[in-house]
């Protein structure tokens, strides 16, 4: 049986190695991918077009902002689909597993986490807001923020975390993130540009067209961050408790 599965695998492998010898030199700056007008434009003109030093952020949130919107939508879909799959699916009462013991949350753990969580959350904000000049951005910041809530759930229990971030709110926050993203796009459309043409926002805000892009990108990243925060936590909460939202892990 396993022999048969090897056939497609080896077929794909042979195909890929066959092409590998045709690839441009590794790390050569003159390869078609690195030397194309598109990527040269990104490297040379990001500063002029958007004034954002981090090219990745600029390309992500502005040049290819439409992609990123759907990336956010994918996260949103994952969260919604997990809720849809697990809601009311299994036993209402969790089974008691053999390793479970009834005990208060550990004092050392909870106190350490109490100290850690503000730091993590501030770092998450920093990553989100500082994504324009350093690695980071909405997605990473959002994951860190979501991780802080997961940490609460891990060190106390799921109910404690859900009391701070109820499940309805995760859906609302996640939806608002997408609304914020798309809303910036639609707003710039009403101002006369194309969808997601942030430069048009300069017509309402007292900034230059480039700085309008710069600031709109921050707004967009906040939208991404909101969605990702909410969905990461919602994923954990649903998966750890089989959708019951109580007594997880």
């Amino acid at each position: 049986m396993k022999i048969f599965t090897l056939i497609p695998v080896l077929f794909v492998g042979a195909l890929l190695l066959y092409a590998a010898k045709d690839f441009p030199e590794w790390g050569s700056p003159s390869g078609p991918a690195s030397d194309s007008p598109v990527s040269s434009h990104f490297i040379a003109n990001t500063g002029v077009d958007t004034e954002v030093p981090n090219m990745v952020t600029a390309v992500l949130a502005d040049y290819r902002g439409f992609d990123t919107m759907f990336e956010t939508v994918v996260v949103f879909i994952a969260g919604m689909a997990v809720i849809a799959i697990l809601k009311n699916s299994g036993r209402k009462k969790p089974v008691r597993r053999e390793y479970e013991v009834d005990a208060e949350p550990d004092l050392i753990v909870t106190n350490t986490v109490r100290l850690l969580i503000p730091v993590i959350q501030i770092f998450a904000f920093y990553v989100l807001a500082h994504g324009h000049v350093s690695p980071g951005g909405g997605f990473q910041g959002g994951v860190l923020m979501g991780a802080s809530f997961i940490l609460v759930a891990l060190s106390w229990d799921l109910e404690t975390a859900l009391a701070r971030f109820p499940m309805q709110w995760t859906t609302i926050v996640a939806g608002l993130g997408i609304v914020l993203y798309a809303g910036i796009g639609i707003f710039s459309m009403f101002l006369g540009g194309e969808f997601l043409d942030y430069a048009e926002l300069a017509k309402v805000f007292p900034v230059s067209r480039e700085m309008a892009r710069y600031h709109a990108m921050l707004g967009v990243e906040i939208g991404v961050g909101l969605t990702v925060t909410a969905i990461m936590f919602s994923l954990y909460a649903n998966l750890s408790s089989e959708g019951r939202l109580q007594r997880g892990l």
Partner: protein
Amino acid sequence: MGLALFNTFILLLLVVAAILALRVKDLLTAAVVFAVYSFLMCLLWAEMGAVDVAFTEATVGAGVSTVVMIATIFNLKRKSSD
């Protein structure tokens, strides 16, 4: 040269981690080895200049997706037949 050596070292470790993650019979161990794999990948990407991708992989691949995977495995059987 140093970086090339580092690169090669990580690449080989990656293969080892990938095979190990698929071969271990205990799913929890597999998930943790997969986290190691993700983190090695993150190192490699950081070395290759893809800092944003590395950051994302560190938070997502080695972080949240491992946590989520372990949370799921706790609700399933831990042992795997292969």
